[in-house]
């Protein structure tokens, strides 16, 4: 049954019959684990690549934090690790910037975009809407492999002679365009751009697949207003990707041309290395507009999946419906739309016309309203709940805390006048590390702890999870909260050392403290890493529905095979958030069980049977 569905339905859509036979026979190792077209395997590939990227990215930060804490101290081990980039154990200023750039790029794009959205969109979309796989398994596979190539190129660039890109993750030209300006802008930058081209391709391939699948392959009864909030979050994220990544591609291509063909899109009137360059008429500000047209949606591409995951996790573990389901969807749509018209709040003091500043200030502060709605709704979901502190739940509520503390500083930065002093200080660093970095990382962790049983058929050890949570939650606050203080003291971003200015030197002690906290957090991550790897092989075997959750993914076999459900795909009879519904014996009520089959409390009059709503597309009910 399942098999026939696969062949008859989605491979016809792809029009790619050549691949059908893979599904009928025993698959070889290559087909099954490497060039897999199964969304669950692809999700795991994204996750594991994301985790490896995170290890690299976080290690960089642990190293450059050493430099910030001890600007004049030699660490001999750095020389053995970094070679000529740290002669005598002291990191060179150029390589400090290279490490910061790599850290930012890897964390934002590889870990929190591909690792988060790539993993959970792939894993959850078919399982939660009741589909056998993505609309196109083949495109899905391409999406992963484009990401893989992108990651390989980026990691290779770390090892080249002139070092990796060093202009910050926002790669503003002319710094990123001129190898004379910094060594990392040579081959390193070329590789950065090449890597991003693959990354953008990966994002686009993934996103069109997610959108198509959610819109077309929902099972019987799964109307849009019965989808879990995770689905809404992934759908909106994918739409943001489709609309914004092409702009980054064009920005990157023009930069390529300026670098390689001598065009002048971003360059003008430059005197460097004792030479006047021929470039004339270009504008560095143009690049910033293009970059942030992607860049601001990108921060929501990173955050929305985390918000979706935490909505689901918080509802399940407080045993309560998510409060204000429609408002949650509405505010996510609001955020998604607004995120396209606020980009220039990153550019208030770049010399852009001040009138534009006013317009962007208005839109930017409006975006705080849907964000506030979300925060309040999370909190109300907890009210009078029956809260179970699973590790996933702890990370989800940690996310809410970070989202508030980090988001609130957006109100300062979004105010153009206040941004004059605050721009490019540690205040901004604190803002986005809390609201984007920490909150999204917590979304990622919550997702892994919550869906690990579905991914690997085993449970993660909850105690190690709690230890991991407390290390990370306390650690991240200790790292990023004091950075507000540094920002309010005027300490600048992207500084190799705070020793040259007296007002910054006052914060050296605090800088040391932050570095200790960063290492503390870093060490805590090993609890996760160990738990993750250990539990894949030796964890307790998972029960069918370990969290007593309503959503469809828990109706599959414990380790779902290709096609997800061995028999028919279940139909859906209600929204996914009926937890603790009065009159029911259980405190949950899976979406796929019709009203008349539920277990009611004695003396409770069950409602009359209702026919499932007409599904969007009768994919599941056809069988």
């Amino acid at each position, binding site marked *: 049954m399942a098999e026939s569905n696969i062949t008859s339905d989605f491979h016809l859509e792809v029009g790619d019959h050549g691949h059908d036979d893979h599904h009928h026979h025993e698959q070889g190792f290559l087909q099954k684990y490497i060039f897999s077209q199964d969304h669950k395997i692809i999700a795991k590939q994204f996750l594991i690549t994301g985790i490896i990227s995170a290890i690299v990215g976080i290690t960089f930060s642990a190293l450059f934090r050493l430099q910030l804490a001890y600007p004049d101290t030699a660490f001999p081990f750095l020389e053995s690790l970094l070679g000529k980039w740290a002669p005598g154990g002291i990191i060179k200023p150029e390589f400090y910037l290279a490490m910061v750039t790599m850290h930012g790029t890897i964390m934002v794009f590889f870990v929190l975009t591909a690792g988060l959205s790539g993993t959970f969109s792939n894993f959850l979309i078919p399982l939660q809407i009741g589909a056998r796989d993505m609309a196109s398994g083949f495109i899905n596979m391409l999406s992963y492999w484009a990401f893989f190539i992108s990651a390989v190129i980026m990691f290779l660039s770390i090892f080249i002679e002139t070092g990796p890109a060093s202009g910050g993750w926002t790669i503003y030209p002319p710094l990123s365009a*001129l190898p004379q300006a910094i060594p990392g802008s040579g081959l390193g930058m070329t590789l950065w751009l090449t890597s991003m081209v693959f990354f953008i391709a990966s994002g686009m391939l993934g996103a069109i697949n997610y959108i198509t699948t959610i819109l077309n392959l929902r099972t019987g009864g799964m109307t849009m207003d019965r989808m879990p909030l995770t689905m809404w979050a992934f759908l909106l994220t994918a739409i943001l990707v489709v609309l914004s990544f092409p702009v980054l591609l064009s920005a990157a291509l023009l930069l390529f041309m300026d670098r390689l063909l001598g065009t002048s899109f971003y360059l003008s009137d430059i005197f460097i290395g004792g*030479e006047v360059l021929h470039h004339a008429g270009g504008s*560095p500000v143009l690049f910033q507009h293009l970059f942030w047209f992607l860049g601001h949606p990108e921060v929501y591409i990173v955050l929305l999946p985390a918000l979706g995951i935490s909505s689901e996790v918080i509802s399940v573990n407080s045993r309560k419906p998510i409060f204000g389901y429609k408002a949650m969807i509405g505010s996510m749509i609001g955020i998604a739309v607004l995120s396209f018209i606020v980009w220039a709040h990153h550019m208030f003091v770049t010399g852009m016309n001040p009138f534009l500043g006013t317009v962007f200030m208005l839109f930017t502060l409006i975006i705080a309203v849907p964000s506030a709605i979300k925060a309040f709704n999370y*909190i109300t979901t907890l009210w009078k709940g029956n809260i*179970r502190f699973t590790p996933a739940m702890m990370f989800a509520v940690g996310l809410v805390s970070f989202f508030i503390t980090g988001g609130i500083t957006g109100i300062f930065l979004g105010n153009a006048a206040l941004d004059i002093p605050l721009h490019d200080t540690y205040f901004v660093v604190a803002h986005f590390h809390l609201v984007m970095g920490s909150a999204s990382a917590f979304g990622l962790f919550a997702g892994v702890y919550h869906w690990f049983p579905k991914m690997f058929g085993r449970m993660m050890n909850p105690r190690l999870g709690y230890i991991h949570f407390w290390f990370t939650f306390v650690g991240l606050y200790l790292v990023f909260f004091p950075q507000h203080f540094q920002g309010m003291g005027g300490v600048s971003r992207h500084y190799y050392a705070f020793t040259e200015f007296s007002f910054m030197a006052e914060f050296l002690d605090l800088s040391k403290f932050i570095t200790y906290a960063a290492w503390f957090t870093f060490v805590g991550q090993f609890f996760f890493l160990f738990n993750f790897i250990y539990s894949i092989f030796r964890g307790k075997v998972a029960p069918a529905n370990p969290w007593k959750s309503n959503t469809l993914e828990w109706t599959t076999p414990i380790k779902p095979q290709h096609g997800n459900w061995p028999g028919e795909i279940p139909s859906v009879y209600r929204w996914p958030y009926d937890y603790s519904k009065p009159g029911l014996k259980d405190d949950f009520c899976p979406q796929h069980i019709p009203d008349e089959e539920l277990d009611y409390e004695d003396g409770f009059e069950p409602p009359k049977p209702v026919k499932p709503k007409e599904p969007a597309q009768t994919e599941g009910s056809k069988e």
Partner: protein
Amino acid sequence: MDAQSLLSLTKWLLVFIFFLVIYSMALVLRLKKIDPFKEWNPTKINGGLMMLFFIVGTIAAVWSSAYWFPKFALVLDPASEHGVSLDRMFWRTMIVSIAVVVVTHTILFYFLWRYQDRPGQKALYYPHNNKLEVIWTVVPAIVMTILIADGVRNWHDIMDPDEATKEASIDVELTGRQFQWDIRYPGVDKELGQAHVKYISGANTLGLNFDDVKTHDDILATELHLPVGVPVHVHIRSMDVLHSPTLMQFRVKMDAVPGMPTNFYFTPSVTTKEMREIKGDPEFEYEMSCQQICGGAHYNMRRVVVVETMEEYQKWLSEQKAFYTTFKEMNPGMDEGKTADAGDIKEIGTLTSTN
């Protein structure tokens, strides 16, 4: 092996042994199927820890804020006129923010502690409440509107000062290059002469156009001197990559963009001397930094800023020599007002790289 390294070796050995002991204990417990934490109720513990985190965290936040408060030079003791209203707005926003964070976190952590899973407790089925939702849409919207109104006004005042201010202002030019700031004053004619990279030659690394007589009295300085109480019109240029001249104490920042001159108006209101008294630090100097990543020595683009009385300023200015005069002395053969053709620029440019 000296005592020092022996000591550090022992330290590592002890750590290693510590982990071995823990590991073997875990193995034994596992083998004997003993769970030493069986009695522990993770929900209770974590619920309690959440409360503890909130209480300790709040105390730590308050204490550390108070401790560092005197050092918040970016938002205290403004040294410019617009800085006063900016700082006022900052602290107003801060009060709103602290209120929001404290209230939401108090509720959040209270709920986490209060509503932890208890036997026999059933959650309340409470999917929505339109009235509540309208309230917390409207209230933030109103607060935002107030903040926006304040912000727009300030932004406008700073970016587009009135004509009187513009009239009264003195000009000064800041040019960023890897890795220093060039400071140019207009000299007696009070007008900055024309400059462009195409006029760069020899020691004239700023690219002053000597055909434009207005450049002849322009002064290059190594410190930024400003008279107190007089509006300053800062003209900002970059020679190579983006920079961002930042006069932190004056709440001034604007990117330097190659090919696109930018500018900023501000009025210094506190002299260096007065600020030394306010800070109680006789060594205090105003400092100018760069806050847009520009390369290896980005962290080190420092210039001292001196704010003084008009008399002191004028005295200082009169002691400076016009750059054109110095340049002529260095190039005795040079024709009056003649510069290289554009065609020679590359060659000449290379000569200047010793700078």
